[in-house]
């Protein structure tokens, strides 16, 4: 009897969830768009921040560097450590509230640009470490070879080390995007109208939290699942032995012995 009741109740829950989704799908859809907007731009900008911070962090001080370069590298090491430790060591929700209200008198910003800024700078701190680890995983011989033909340390970084570092750390970079899709939900704390905020508004207006958030669960799952599939696909493409030949080649065939 109990079993029947609970089965009926769960039937009911699913049915109600479907109804809520149909009725409020434009509100959910709006939330999805904001969630994807802030998490994608935040991840991309965060990656750029990470490339600069992590890239410079990984450049060792060489005995022949001129004094100003040495000083810059030392200063950068200290500042980037503070940055990375602060943003990895405090919750994003706290950073969001602190920076949104803290900088509001100066920047007069809206929640969405603030959200993108916060996700970017937060993700940047993780990306910096991911990139640094990626750089350290590149074989030292690659660097020696580049230096031995006369490349500067910046050229070596740009043309030889960085492309390999990014490829090596692609899984971790992609993972940051998935994390951001989920964790951008904490930005409801500064009234960003992303998926969690929208769900909360819908649930609050009809007093059906369980049913509404079941819908929300599914939407997040679809977003992250789709994203991971796309990332796996790209990762596989990166790993494949490359054999595409540019049109302007001088030979037509690669003859494998």
């Amino acid at each position, binding site marked *: 009897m109990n079993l029947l009741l609970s089965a009926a109740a769960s039937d009911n829950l699913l049915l109600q969830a479907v109804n809520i989704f149909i009725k409020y799908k434009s509100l959910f859809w709006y939330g999805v768009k904001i969630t994807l907007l802030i998490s994608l731009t935040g991840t991309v900008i965060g990656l750029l921040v990470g490339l600069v911070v992590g890239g410079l962090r990984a450049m060792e001080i060489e005995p*022949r560097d001129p004094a100003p370069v040495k000083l810059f590298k030392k200063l950068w090491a200290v500042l980037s450590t503070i940055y990375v430790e602060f943003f990895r060591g405090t919750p994003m929700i706290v950073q969001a509230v602190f920076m949104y209200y803290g900088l509001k008198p100066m920047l007069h910003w809206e929640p969405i640009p603030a959200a993108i800024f916060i996700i970017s700078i937060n993700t940047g701190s993780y990306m910096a470490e991911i990139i640094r680890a990626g750089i350290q995983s590149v074989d030292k011989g690659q660097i020696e*070879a580049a230096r031995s*033909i*006369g490349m*500067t340390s910046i050229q070596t970084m740009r043309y030889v080390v960085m492309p390999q570092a990014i490829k090596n750390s692609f899984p971790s970079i992609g993972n940051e995007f998935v994390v951001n899709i989920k964790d951008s939900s904490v930005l409801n704390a500064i009234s960003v109208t992303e998926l969690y905020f929208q769900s909360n508004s819908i649930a609050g207006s009809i007093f059906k939290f369980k049913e509404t958030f079941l819908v929300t669960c599914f939407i997040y799952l679809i977003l992250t699942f789709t994203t991971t599939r796309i990332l796996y696909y790209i990762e596989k493409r990166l790993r494949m032995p490359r*054999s595409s030949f540019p049109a302007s080649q001088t*030979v037509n065939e*690669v003859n494998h012995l």
Partner: protein
Amino acid sequence: MENIITIKNLKKSFGSLDVLRDVQFSVGKNEVITLIGSSGSGKSTLLRCINLLEVPDSGEILFHEQNILEGSIDVNKHRSAVGMVFQSFNLFSNMTVLNNCMIGQLKVLGRDKESSQKKAMDFLTKVGMDKFAHSYPDQLSGGQKQRVAIARALCMDPEVLLFDEPTSALDPEMVGDVLDVMKTLANEGLTMIVVTHEMGFARDVSTRVVFMDKGVIVEEGPPSQIFTNPQQPRTKEFLSRYLG
């Protein structure tokens, strides 16, 4: 004979280990010098000092009468004039064979794309790797990689080419291919310094053999002298193990 490289009183230690202890050495134009000696004798370190992959503790390295250890020297310019071929090939794994040979020409020497590509293809043809121009290093065998690495170094038009045990990481079958390329270069008059354990190459190809032991040059001379009539007991001992 004009000396390209003159090394005076070169010293280098790693921590408490003295790897080079007072090395004097010079290289003339068109010379093919082989550096031989047991592992840890300092020959690779000496080679790496010449293009400043290692910075010596004291002494002088004169390149065309100019001491490259002075602070005012443009290290990158010097390195582009002194090519290096490594034991582990070190081809840029993110680039095709062709791009490996072009990147230095484009970014270091400032050549245009067309002439860089032409030169790269010329040298790849020379080492027999032109068919693989659009392959990636991962798709090549060790011997093929090393031939590409030689082409990459040649594309920079170096005055001296340094070889750091170029055949030590190769299967015996592939050693011949690489040595053949090096022989061709030697016959064409390229100045080369080769650290090697290939005594056949040292005997047949080099113009001068330098034997190093424990961070100093023990003996040097033409191969006929070193291999048939070595003067120093340490040289005799070393060679007897190789030549039986």
